[in-house]
């Protein structure tokens, strides 16, 4: 072996990335355990409460309400009917409880990542320097294999819906940041200048010019966030988040093709329903 390779692979020279990371998380668990646990307990309580509340309603009534919401969002009777039939199919497959759990998790994750991601995206769009620092972090969040951050999240927050929600948010936020950034930076210069020339304050410029102009892109970010959240459902189930993901993991563990197919189709139906319902302002009114 050549001397450089030999030197580098000598284990006494190894850069202790793993131990550092472990030490960092040990430090967090040792000192702030109560904080993290309190946070995850209240989050679990909240999510479970919403799920239980929704399950109190007769399934057909809830399905009808969702179909009605679809109609009000998109003004399309066809869509409302499709939503109604799709969700009835899930009910028919006896996966309603799991679907509601997944639905709550996905909607919460998408809402939280929009609530955090949109302001971050606006900030990054106004400050190119900030974006330059943000970019590698976003790349890391999207490319680091999910299993790798399942472990620390598990140690910090324990099992349950809350850690499932947190890993989903970590995975989804970059999308809403990126699309918001794209939307705001691609507002035509001529209309920004028009706003400035007529004496807009920074805030007026944001609310009356930049955000309306970026809205279609930001809404595409919402749709993407929901889709990505759904794709995280199976992983989140590994650390105790309930729902359809649990069914799929169980099907995998016991090699049940039938169960896997049923739960998988339910996710697909849910994905299509949510996607069509949230296409607001994307190729909308002409």
């Amino acid at each position, binding site marked *: 072996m050549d001397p450089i390779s030999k030197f580098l692979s000598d284990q006494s020279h190894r850069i202790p990335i793993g131990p550092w990371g472990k030490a960092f998380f040990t430090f967090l668990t040792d000192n702030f355990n109560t904080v993290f646990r309190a946070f995850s307990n209240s989050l679990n309580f909240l999510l479970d409460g919403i799920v239980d509340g929704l399950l109190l309603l007769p399934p057909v009534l809830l399905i009808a309400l969702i179909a009605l919401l679809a109609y009000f969002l998109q003004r399309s009777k066809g869509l409302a009917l499709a939503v109604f039939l799709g969700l009835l199919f899930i009910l028919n497959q006896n996966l309603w409880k799991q679907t509601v759990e997944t639905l709550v998790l996905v909607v919460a994750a998408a809402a939280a990542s929009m609530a955090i991601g949109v302001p971050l995206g606006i900030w990054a769009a106004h400050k190119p320097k900030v974006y330059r620092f943000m970019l590698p972090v976003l790349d890391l969040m999207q490319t680091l294999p999910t299993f790798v951050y399942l472990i620390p999240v598990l140690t910090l927050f324990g099992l349950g819906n809350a850690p499932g929600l947190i890993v989903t948010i970590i995975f989804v936020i970059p999308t809403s940041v990126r699309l918001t950034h794209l939307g705001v930076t691609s507002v035509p210069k001529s209309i920004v200048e*028009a706003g400035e020339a007529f004496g807009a304050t920074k805030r007026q410029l944001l609310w009356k010019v930049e955000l*309306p102009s970026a*809205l279609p892109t930001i809404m595409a970010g919402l749709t993407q966030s929901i889709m990505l959240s759904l794709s995280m459902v199976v992983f989140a189930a590994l650390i105790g988040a309930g729902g359809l993901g649990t069914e799929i993991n169980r099907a995998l563990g016991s090699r049940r093709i039938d169960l896997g197919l049923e739960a998988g189709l339910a996710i697909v139906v849910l994905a299509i329903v949510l996607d069509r319902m949230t296409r607001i302002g994307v190729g909308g009114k002409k």
Partner: protein
Amino acid sequence: MTVAVDFRNVDIVFGADQAGSLALIDSGATRAEILEKTGNVLGCAGASLTVHEGEISVLMGLSGSGKSTLLRAVNRLNVVSRGQVLVKDGDGTVDVVTCDEATLRRLRQKQVAMVFQQFGLLPWRTVEENVGLGLELAGMPEAERKARVKKQLELVHLDQWAKKYAHELSGGMQQRVGLARAFATEAPILLMDEPFSALDPLIRTKLQDELLQLQAELKKTIIFVSHDLEEALKIGSHITIMEGGRIVQTGAPEDIVLRPANDYVRDFIANVNPLSVLTAWNVMRDRRDLEHGKDGWVWLDRRKTTRFKIDEHGLVAAAERDGKPAVWVSCADVEGQPEEAAQVFWANPGTSLKTVMLAMHRSQTAPVALFDDQSRFVGAIGIRDVLSAVLRR
């Protein structure tokens, strides 16, 4: 006349090394040299220009000459590196370069409005919402705003289109919306950055005419950027020609055409039809330069075919052509006059050269006299004066 906007030694440099670039400007470096040495782009240098109230002042030049850059200094869309831009604000003036943000916003909302080449309309808003933008930003209550917007839309004949979205309109209509938006704030100063360049020629001419009509009523101070000399000559009361970021010549349209300052300006005007600019005043010979005879007789032309007898008040007492008595008739009536040798036409200083030529044609190349408002004789135009003006010799 009150000064509305006063540019004083304005330098604008885009880039990081402001101090280095300004030093190069002072040493007379060109834009290319500054770019090479500092990496900065020279917007404009040493620009001084005074725009009076009620004027249409046109900034002219090829693309990259700095005309838009200078215009955008008035509402600080471009930041001035050095110099002053004084804008009239009520009874006082404000230096836009140094004023604080609040003052700048007030100026933009109430004193200076702008019309853009690419219209700059907000596509998700209806026409009336676009027109009301400036008023909305200034915090005007909705009822008052609606009334003002309605009035403006009527002014530009778009009241039928109030509820349409901007992108549903043709280019010409969109720019009318842009105009209405600028007029709606009732700002006395209007910045127009090549507003008609993106329109096809017929619509462009129509909007120019409409602008002139509106201006006759509204009497705004307009700074207008154009790269089209015909347009500048048509609408400008003053024209400023820029090259490479510097002002080359400022003057009335006919000054530019008759006395171009250098070859750049001469190239610019080479294709301009002098008939569309020049007036009788520009080509006449002053009465003092004419040949005087006895008893108050004055020869109007060098060939001595026509003479006037001028009384002590400067009025014409008698006319003679080819030795026979003649009548003198206004150019304004030239169309209705029979062609005959016994008449001499007269014009006012503002009469177009075209009309003067028509009068000469009708009177078999007789000279045309020039009278002032009180009908006093001030000068004459012979055929040679016309020919040399048209040929620019």
